[in-house]
């Protein structure tokens, strides 16, 4: 089975604070086809996020498929609140890169 990286299928892959206690991730597609492809692939789910970031289910506050925007979105509780001592991404905007390499099967 051929695969493509998420980075090559999505228009936007980003992370950002959603309150001082959470970081939210948005994966947005230009067209319905790629959105549906990734949505139905089973490669971007609560379970795969838990595995990728090595976190328990309780760390994921929301996981949403948002059809009007062709977007998949999930939100994590931070282990350290934004801007606290030892915390090194005050905006939470550099937490998305591991998503870029997720391999999505694209058929034969």
């Amino acid at each position, binding site marked *: 089975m051929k695969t493509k990286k998420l980075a090559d299928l999505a228009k936007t892959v980003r992370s*950002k604070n959603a*309150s*001082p206690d959470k970081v939210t991730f948005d994966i947005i597609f230009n067209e319905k086809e790629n959105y549906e492809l990734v949505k139905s692939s089973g490669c971007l789910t609560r379970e795969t996020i838990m595995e990728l970031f090595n976190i328990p289910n309780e760390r994921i506050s929301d996981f949403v498929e948002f059809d009007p925007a062709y977007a998949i979105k999930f939100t994590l509780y931070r282990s350290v609140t*934004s801007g*606290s001592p*030892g915390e090194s991404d005050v905006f939470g905007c550099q937490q998305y890169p591991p998503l870029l390499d997720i391999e999505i099967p694209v058929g034969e």
Partner: protein
Amino acid sequence: MGEKKQLKILCPNGHLGFAPTKEKSFWIGAKEKPDYYCSDSGSNDIGPTPLGADISVSPYEWQKHDLEVMLIASREQGVPMIIGSAGDTGTNSRVDMYVGMIKDLAGKHNIPKFKLAYFYSDVPKELIKKKLNEGIVIEGLDGRKNFTLEDLEKTDRIVAVAGVHPYIKALDMGADVIIGGRSSDIALFAAPAIRAGFPEDLSYYLGKVLECASFCAEPYAAKETVIGTITDEDVKVTAMHPKQRCTIASVAAHAMYERSNPFFEYVAGGMLDMRDCDYEQYDEKTCRITGPKFVPIEGKVKVKLEGSGKIGERYIGIAGIRDPYTIKNIDTVLELVRGQIKELYPDNDYQIHFTVYGKNGVMGDLEPVKEIKSHELCVIVEAIAPTKKKAESLAIMGMRQIFYARLPEVKGTAGTAAFIVDEALPASPAYEWTLNHIIPVDDPMEFFDVHVIEVGK
């Protein structure tokens, strides 16, 4: 009311002053003769230090520039201008600073007399203590525990986050310009629409879609102007930049931005439910939205509180490492370093953190790449202590111990750290968010007092 069939609000900037408003699209928008000029100037994205230390992160000149273009356009046209969360944090001192800027600008441009309303939102610690002692529950958000007297001890400054209430009151008092304390960004757009008689469902949505200005348009551009139009049936949002459009995708995607969930937005007084939103391309640059619902809270209004507390003075040390064996065993090295520091400073009144760039400096425990692939590492030593002197000594100790940390297999025996400067650098004091909570109130105006003064010639 509903004497107007539609109301147009212009938003030039999603965080006024943080980066300057782009003037070209602003003046294109001003030609549309909006009924209001509105912009929020705050964020809690910027970490706990600005609130705790009561400072702005935006440069004074940019803040004043952005107020200036809005003031000139709105006064020329004779329509109100509304600013929320003055000076990044919305504290009293930031409100006073913006009020001062408006007075200066009115003088500079010889603007005829107008009414300037402002309200504060700092909450005295004593008041919160009283509420806690009365048994009022201050409920934690985003997984936080309920607020306690112990948490209050750790807090230096508290602001309450305003809903539409003080804005409606200021408009009722005849305000031409409003400078608001800390506010929900959507409230300052919703307030004039609600006051004009438009449905709450659409009024709050109008605020939601406008609050970040051109972030609801595509292609991506920041600090460009958008205009939102509300009627009794719908909200339309239009990009003013010649190359930007508000599309179904861009507007829908904006609902997700900086929120844990694209379907719900909470504000003092209720919740905006966007699950049944319908998006439609109205014209080339305009998206039309129908179907949002505002669900008023049952029982007492709950006002959000933000609080920040100082942890200590802070110094930063920077150490570079090139020795391959030290890089490979960096965790062991830092364990040794921590042990050495503990020996010298056995007390518990300080913190020392090591952020290792090249390993997991950015992502920390979320970093899936476990193997270090870099031939260099940069270690940032962050020391926090009750006094500057102690923080400095600790940071230097952190650097020196990396320098001396010699694992037996290391060939270089003259030093295992490269320094740009062999000293620790003073940093801003360390703060932490102590409050991200909500408190029930009998009167939604309880924390906000509105003042009106006359400004101009």
